[in-house]
């Protein structure tokens, strides 16, 4: 028998951990209006309604975008930056519903973050959901 040396108190604490994923912007931030993922208690197959039918794999995503404009040509220049976009769970789920009308819900949910950065000037952080959809 495998005994795991973690107390119940630690387990309970970890269960409630939630950390937001915001796009990071440096320099002088002149505008920042984004949404990022915090927590999402997803379904497991056991929690499916009895008459549910699995429809296959579904994907959705929501993105935050950021722009950082350097003010000089120095190695570590001061920059003006701004960020905009909805990269939260809600947006990613809306994306799934739009692409798969009639879907009741999702199960076996995997969530990844997708970071794209070009020269540190343009940045994009997307929340990507891959799951099984059901009706």
């Amino acid at each position, binding site marked *: 028998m495998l005994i795991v040396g973690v107390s119940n108190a630690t387990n309970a604490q970890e269960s409630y951990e939630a950390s937001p994923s915001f796009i990071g912007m440096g320099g002088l931030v002149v505008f920042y209006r984004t949404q990022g993922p915090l927590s999402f208690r*997803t379904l497991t197959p*056991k929690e499916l309604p009895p008459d549910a039918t699995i429809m296959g794999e579904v994907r959705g995503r929501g993105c935050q975008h950021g722009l950082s404009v350097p003010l000089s040509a120095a190695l570590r220049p001061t920059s003006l930056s701004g960020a905009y976009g909805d990269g939260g769970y809600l947006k990613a789920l809306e994306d799934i519903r739009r692409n798969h009308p009639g879907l009741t819900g999702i199960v*076996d949910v995997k969530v990844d973050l997708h970071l794209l950065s070009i020269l540190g000037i343009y940045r994009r952080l997307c929340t990507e959901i891959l799951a099984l959809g059901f009706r």
Partner: protein
Amino acid sequence: MWRNATRAFFIVLLAASLAACGLIYTNIQYPRAYRSATPADVKASVSDPVVSGEACSQSLLFLFAWGDGGYAAATRRALEGRPEAILYDVQADVKARAYLLGLYTQWCTVVTGKVGRF
């Protein structure tokens, strides 16, 4: 003082190399959350095979970073050739490698679990 400066330098270098970000171009995916199934969630049997899938992102010369090291890619690899299956009793680990002072780094998500059915 020299010792502290050296230690700080290596800590910064290690952090930069393990962050797997490129100064010029970054296009990476990394894991955020996965509420996997338990044996009670699926049709489980003692003969269900244990499979493993690994997905990695890497960086080179601190300038470029690329790769899909997320849960979706790792589980897809674990379930390759089993389109109707689902993973349960899943353990997810991360694996990091850095060579030549972090000039090349690799950061992987490793998903291991049993193959079940609905």
